[in-house]
């Protein structure tokens, strides 16, 4: 199907700034769903609040635009009730790991079959460029005019430690790789986290003198490397891309069904 069959065309051109990486994540997600041949009415997109969370409004599937940081809580309810649906939760870095950090680690711990996509632009885009838990030390933001003294989370390490059974990272420069990661994540049975490093030229780019969208994409190209590459050995500063975790553990909805079956046996 052409791209236009997957979107709500009446809302286009979309509201995101020129060169915003969130648009590329939308683009990649549509190509993956097209490739997988998923039925549009078998997909639920649940988002919170943020520039990134606007993605739900643009996609022509079942969609819920919920509360800041709470998308995974809504998604958990939907998935438990309708486990046959593909539930995908795109989140901003603030949405996922500041206000929503607790939901994030516990969804991972439960291993519920949801695909979480963290659209990591390392800043609060929607509200004017405040720093987020993913900005990191030395980063400039509207709330850190002299640069941030907070260290950042590593999304992949955090997700893995919290129990996610699929964890991957790519960027909006590496679109074919990002598509592969999201495709694997959707097919994975269990809680999957895909971090897509994304560019906010309007706030992150401007405040950190990273230039325009093109410059920011080149920066992601030059500062990342595939997991285990020789380049990483030479330059430990490089951020690794690829699949960090891919393992099987009992999935939450299936385990819950088992308990119900067991409890009903003696009746």
């Amino acid at each position, binding site marked *: 199907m*052409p*791209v236009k069959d997957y*979107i709500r065309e009446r809302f*286009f*051109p*979309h509201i*995101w*700034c*020129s*060169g*915003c*990486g*969130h*648009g*590329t994540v*939308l*683009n*990649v997600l*549509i*190509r993956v769903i097209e490739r997988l041949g998923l039925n549009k009415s078998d997909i639920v997109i649940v988002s919170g609040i943020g520039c990134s969370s606007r993605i739900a409004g643009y996609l022509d599937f079942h969609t819920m635009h919920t509360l800041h940081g709470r998308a995974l809580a809504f998604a958990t309810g939907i998935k438990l009730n309708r486990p046959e649906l593909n539930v995908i939760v795109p989140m901003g870095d603030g949405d996922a790991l500041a206000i929503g950090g607790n939901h994030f680690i516990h969804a991972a711990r439960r291993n519920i079959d949801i695909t979480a996509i963290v659209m990591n632009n390392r800043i609060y885009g929607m509200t004017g460029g405040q720093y987020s838990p993913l900005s990191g030390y030395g980063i400039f933001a509207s709330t850190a005019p002299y640069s941030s003294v907070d260290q950042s989370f590593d999304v992949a390490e955090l997700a893995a430690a919290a129990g996610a059974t699929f964890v991957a990272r790519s960027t*909006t*420069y590496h*679109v*074919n790789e990002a*598509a592969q990661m999201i495709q694997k994540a959707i097919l994975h049975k269990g809680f999957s986290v895909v971090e897509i490093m994304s560019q906010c030229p309007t706030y992150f780019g401007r405040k950190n003198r990273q230039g*325009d*969208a*093109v410059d920011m*994409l080149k920066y992601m190209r030059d500062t990342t490397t595939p997991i285990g590459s020789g380049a990483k050995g030479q330059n430990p500063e490089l951020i690794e891309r690829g699949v960090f975790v891919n393992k099987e553990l009992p999935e939450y909805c299936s385990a819950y069904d088992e308990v119900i079956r067991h409890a009903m046996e003696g009746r």
Partner: protein
Amino acid sequence: MPKRRLKELCINKEWCKGCGICIEFCPKGVLELDTQDKAVPVRNEDCVVCRLCEMLCPDLAIDIVEEEEAE
């Protein structure tokens, strides 16, 4: 394998915001910005139908149509 051939490269000018991403990263330099800051294909004959521009575009403004393979 036969060479992939471009049939049409459509840019939706209403949606393009002129970010320049497609222009910079097309491996064949097929696209340019016009005077209104919209992407336009100028060297269609060089396109290798890799579809990179199509997937990178944050505004879903590019549609690559491939020539059906000859019988």
